[in-house]
């Protein structure tokens, strides 16, 4: 599903430049649930953002579902993001003046789906994350866990090939974190490819494969025995 080869990325600030990714190579197959680990500042988010076409690499190749991702203009990148990817952010990034339902429906709006169908599909995904009764609430009327569920429903709404989650549990307490991980595991069980950035070991243990990042390089990449979150909920 994802192939990256020799990926490099530096940030330039004035005269300083910071070499964050120093040649990343890794593949993700369809249906995997991968966690990217590493200490703060090791470049996890940078990698995920490049995978998400929110940012561009300086060097290296990236292929997503057989499509080479390079020389994208904004318009094509927007279309690819819309078609291929679903994002889950640490800070949820819901639009605060839109109801839960409208937030979930937004990616469908950019796919050109008509309103009636948008609402139906958004409702289906809200139901899937257990928030159907909250569909007309605004984000600030929801708890952190609920917000993240809405964000997950939104990421799923456009039926993307890959879900990218940057510290999805970073803003949540342990119990809520496990609830969210339970949801993510369920989605993965249905076959969706998911990448999660985290620096928490217990969260990483709930994925099926852990990629360890240090100083811009992958120092470890191993399959793990998945811990089911449901046992903690």
């Amino acid at each position: 599903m994802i192939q990256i080869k020799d990926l490099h990325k530096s940030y330039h600030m004035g005269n300083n430049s910071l070499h964050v990714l120093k040649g990343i190579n890794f593949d993700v197959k369809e249906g995997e649930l991968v966690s990217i680990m590493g200490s703060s500042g090791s470049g996890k988010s940078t990698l995920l953002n490049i995978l998400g076409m929110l940012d561009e690499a300086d060097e290296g190749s990236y292929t997503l579902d057989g499509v080479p991702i390079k020389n994208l203009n904004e318009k094509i990148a927007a279309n690819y993001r819309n078609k291929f990817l679903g994002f889950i952010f640490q800070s949820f990034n819901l639009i605060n003046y839109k109801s839960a339902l409208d937030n979930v429906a937004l990616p469908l709006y950019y796919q050109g789906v008509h309103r009636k169908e948008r609402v139906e599909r958004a409702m289906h995904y809200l139901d899937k994350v257990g928030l159907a009764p909250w569909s007309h609430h605004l984000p600030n009327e929801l708890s952190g866990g609920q917000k993240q569920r809405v964000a997950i429903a939104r990421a799923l709404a456009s039926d993307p090939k890959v879900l990218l989650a940057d510290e999805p549990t970073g803003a949540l307490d342990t119990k809520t974190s496990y609830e969210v991980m339970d949801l993510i595991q369920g989605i993965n069980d249905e076959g969706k490819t998911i990448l999660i950035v985290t620096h928490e070991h217990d969260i990483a243990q709930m994925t099926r494969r852990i990629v360890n990042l240090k100083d811009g390089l992958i120092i470890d990449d191993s399959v793990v025995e998945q811990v089911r979150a449901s046992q903690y909920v």
Partner: protein
Amino acid sequence: MFDIERWQEIFETLRKNKLRTFLTGLSVASGIFILVILLGFSSGIQNGVTSQFEKDAANSISVWAGVTTKEYKGLNPGRYIQLKNDDFNAIVNKYDDHLEYKSPFYTIWGGLVNYKNESGNYRIQGVLPDNQFIENADISQGRFLNHSDVMGAKKVAVIGNKVSQDLFKGQDPINQSISIYGINFKVIGVFYDPGGERDESKVMMPITTAQKAFNGGNDIRNMTYTVKMSDNFNDAVKLSEQISLGIESDIKEKHIISPDDISAVRVNNTLEEARKIYSLVDTIKAVFWFVGIGTIIAGVVGVGNIMLIIVKERTKEIGVRKALGAEPMSIVGMILQESVFVTMFSGLFGLIAGLGLLEVVGPLIESDFIKYPQVDFNTALATVFVLVFAGAIAGFIPAYRAAKIKPIDALRDE
């Protein structure tokens, strides 16, 4: 632009952000509203002043005599100066080339006028036929005085509309006989005067008749001339100023009055007054336009500012939308469409509110100097579109820049 889904998205955004929508709208609406009111009053002042001058011919020179206040050539002050027919004729002869209409006046203030059982006190004036044009009087029935009435000192009278209403109560006054201090006059005409009721409470008759009937001899109270207008307003002003000065010094010389006695003879030149007031009106108009344009500029800057703030505050939202698949131009389009819709809607609202206020309040204004304040609808509409257009331009730049920000940078924005 006519994508219904897009409009739904925009209306929803506007509805969910009522305060922001309201504030943007308010600044635009109040700008246009103030502009409309300003332009309305500017035109009202113009109308008011213009109508002041419609009362009488705008290019007249009037001459009154009074009491001397200065000793001159051995004559004591306090001497009463009486204008005579000769004075009038001398001026006519001397300035004939430049004068158009001329009339002396022999006036009785508050003369008692009877018709059958009805009576009232009105101003009685002996005049020449030219006075119809000097006073801008309109004949509604019958005719005005003519040359033969004057030559024959006929006992005929032209009455003002008010007099006709008071005494005749809707009956036809023509050829009826009214009596003034017991002397009968035949009514030959009724006139309207743009000066209104005051100028229509008047009875006019030939000067010769008035002088005879009321023991006036050759006396006249005052006299008025109109100056032939040249095409150039300033030339006309200059000419009538010269004639005014000439008349004043002629009369002073004839009646042995000190040249610097300002109370014995008064010469009033309306064209000179008109020039002063018209230039005042021009100044007022310019000031109002200046303030108006300032208001528009403030409005444009305001809208631009609001757009800047809106875009700034929505940077993160824009990032989210882009992450979810919004193309940059759809972001620009969304912001512009919103701003154009809000400015247009509220601009038109301000326009209609302003026009409505002028419509309601305009007729209630009881001032001689403000009449029928109104605004050319197209001018006002044009200003709305200028504002909308400028708002769109002002909004485009930040919107475009926001759409260009990499989504990752927009998302990081707090």
